[in-house]
């Protein structure tokens, strides 16, 4: 038996010259109010300054990929809900997309619309909650988070009346969606989406011009374009660094090419940009939502050829990816012709975005670390799988 968790010794106990005071080795997490789950950072502090930081994870390694190798293709769908548990619907979509690629399935138009509506609602609630958590990490005693969750609850109500569950929707199927929109859902959604700009205005008034927030975020955790690209950072974090890359635009998966929307871009790549890019993305999501809710056609919601049971794609492999709220979410599937995938791999955006955490945090304060981590937006279910 090996002695329990010794934090990894990263550095000698004190610096060579010895004059500046010793380093303090602290592990932040796995139980820490602002590590967004069971994340741990082994931090070496010089006073309050971060000298070294090593992210340690695996505390939520639930063997998603291994389990999926024993499940049918459909059986993995509910498990994808639990990857990024804020955004089950986009996870569903990414997985469905990968399987559709693997098996060559077409999706009916109405289902594509429903997918976009649910995905953009998911993006909205994810960003709102994230900004809430970010300000929570900055020490605002929960007020923005409460406002975000107020709206999130209403979005979850929409999800619930559509899919039957608040968080773990398990809604999408290969070639479409599980059930059609219930009666009155669209009107309800339209009405609700119409109220969301007001919420965004309130949110902005509450925080966006707050001097303390600006001081805490501007110039903190600056991520350069080059590093962001090289480290495979995606999503709002990448775009806040000024790289124009959005899978919705690049791959035009689904029917995203039918919608007019813009991609907000940051210039400084700091925490404030990451925060603002998300706020602006929420507005763009509303834009897409309005168009989709207006244009959604009638029709079937699932490709009639697809089977629920006994689904056995031909041998081969496929990599499907979408722009999830947190970044590029990809699924890599290898089929050996049986009803279970031979290899099932999730490319989680949170994990990739964490790659740069160490570089962003070195030399900053303890207080900055939690803010930077908050702005990267990780969910451990996805990081550890």
């Amino acid at each position: 038996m090996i002695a329990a968790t010794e934090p990894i010794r990263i550095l000698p106990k004190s610096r060579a010259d010895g004059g500046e005071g010793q380093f303090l080795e602290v592990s932040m997490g796995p139980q820490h109010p602002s590590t967004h789950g069971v994340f741990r950072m082994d931090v070496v502090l010089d006073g309050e300054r971060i000298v070294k930081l090593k992210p340690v994870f695996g505390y939520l390694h639930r063997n998603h990929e291994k389990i999926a190798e024993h499940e049918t293709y459909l059986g993995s769908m509910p498990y994808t809900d639990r990857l990024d548990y804020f955004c089950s619907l986009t996870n569903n979509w990414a997985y469905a997309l990968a399987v559709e690629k693997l098996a060559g399935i077409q999706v009916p138009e109405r289902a594509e619309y429903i997918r976009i509506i649910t995905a953009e609602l998911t993006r909205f609630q994810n960003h709102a909650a994230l900004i809430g958590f970010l300000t929570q990490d900055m020490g605002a005693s929960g007020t923005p988070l409460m406002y975000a969750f107020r709206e999130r609850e209403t979005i979850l109500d929409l999800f619930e009346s559509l899919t039957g569950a608040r968080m773990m929707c398990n809604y999408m199927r290969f070639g479409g969606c599980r059930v059609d929109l219930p009666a009155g859902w669209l009107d309800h959604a339209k009405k609700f989406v119409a109220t969301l700009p007001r919420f965004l205005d309130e949110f902005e008034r509450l925080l966006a011009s707050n001097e303390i927030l600006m001081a805490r975020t501007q110039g903190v955790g600056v991520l350069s374009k080059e590093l962001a690209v090289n480290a495979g950072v995606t999503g709002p974090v990448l775009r806040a660094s000024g790289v124009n890359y959005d899978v919705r635009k690049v791959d035009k998966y689904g029917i995203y090419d039918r919608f007019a929307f813009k991609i907000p871009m940051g210039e400084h790549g700091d925490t404030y940009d990451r925060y603002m890019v998300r706020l602006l993305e929420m507005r763009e999501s509303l834009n897409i939502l309005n168009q989709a809710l207006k244009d959604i056609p009638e029709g079937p919601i699932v490709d009639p050829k697809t089977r629920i049971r006994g689904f056995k794609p031909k041998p081969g492999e496929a990599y499907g990816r979408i722009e999830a709220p947190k970044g590029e979410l990809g699924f890599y599937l290898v089929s050996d012709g049986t009803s279970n995938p031979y290899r099932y791999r999730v490319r989680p955006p949170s994990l990739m975005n964490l790659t740069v955490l160490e570089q962003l945090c070195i030399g900053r304060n303890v207080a900055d670390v939690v803010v930077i981590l908050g702005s990267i937006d990780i969910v451990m279910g996805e990081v550890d799988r």
Partner: protein
Amino acid sequence: MHSAIQQADQIFVALQHRVAGYLPVKFQSIADVILSVIAIVLVFAFLFAVTTVLERKGLGRIQNRYGPNRVGPAGFFQPLADGVKSLTKEDLVPRAADQAVHFMAPVLLVIAAFLAYAVLPVGRNMVLADLNAGVLFFFAVGTLVELAVFMAGWSSRNKYSLLGAMRAIAQMISYEVPLVLASIVVIMAAGSLSTVSIVNMQTGYSGIWPHWFVLTPWGFAGFNLFMIAATAESNRSPFDLPEGESEIIAGYYIEYSGFKFALFFLGEYLGMFATSGLAITLFLGGWAAPFSFLTWIPSYLWFFAKLLLMIAIFIWIRGTLPRLRMDQLMNFAWQFMLPMTLINVFAAGVWHFMPGGVIRWLVCAVLLIVPAVLLSRGLKQGKKFEARTYRFAE
């Protein structure tokens, strides 16, 4: 003043004398003192209980929810339940901790918090000890808080608590000087360190308007500076870094459980009341009514009304603002607060040596506003914090 009003105003004083009067003359003065001490302890402990539940309910309302409302009528027995729970909770002391110091820290904190009330006039003739150097006494006692916090953080031998303690001391010493300097303007005007005479200076009225020090340029600036420093001294949001939950978990009291932890809470709130009380005494006329036609309301009610208002503002701010960072906090103290308080002292001096009139107001205001603008520019250190515009890619 009508005698009925006067009676209402002095009812507690009279009651105290009446009760003490039953005793032999020899013990009367002692009884007087003991009665007032009991009153102070009970009233402020009660206020602490009420404030915790008000804070939780108020924060709830700010956040679109009810807050505690099930325990007792409208949830007002919540602190009682918390108290019972804390009393019966196991008291844990880490093995590696310095046991004696660990024990003494919360006790010292509560003592320091209570001592400050000795010089607070909560009403007409209602002060425990009218010390000659009352304000100085207040600040001297306040330094014990620093010591208590350090003892708590250090003795726990926890890394986070130590970080919290260091943060707390650095923050408290940085804001103590501005706190003292901000109150000096009032002392200059009042010519006394006695809290009672400072309040007495402010009880007059011009027309209906009171002679509160806050109604002068230097008083207004002093009040604001004092309140900022007081917020920092009592570790309230947005200056709650020593216990910054999201960063260093619970800060210096991380290893405290049971009633010792409750004592920290108590001490912190009592400290907040005390500094608020001092701000009221120094700038807001103490127990004096805000308008001359309202003087019929008993003086102690005015004091507590003002105190509750201050508490409400504290809660409001806590419900809105994020926390500052350590360097910003320190830079703010040394690069803005300290120079501003010094300039404020200077402005108060100028005010004194100038003849009355509009020109005095103008000069004083300019003397304060211009440096404030310049200093806040300097605070940013070349970094421009501002709302940005964003470009969009198609």
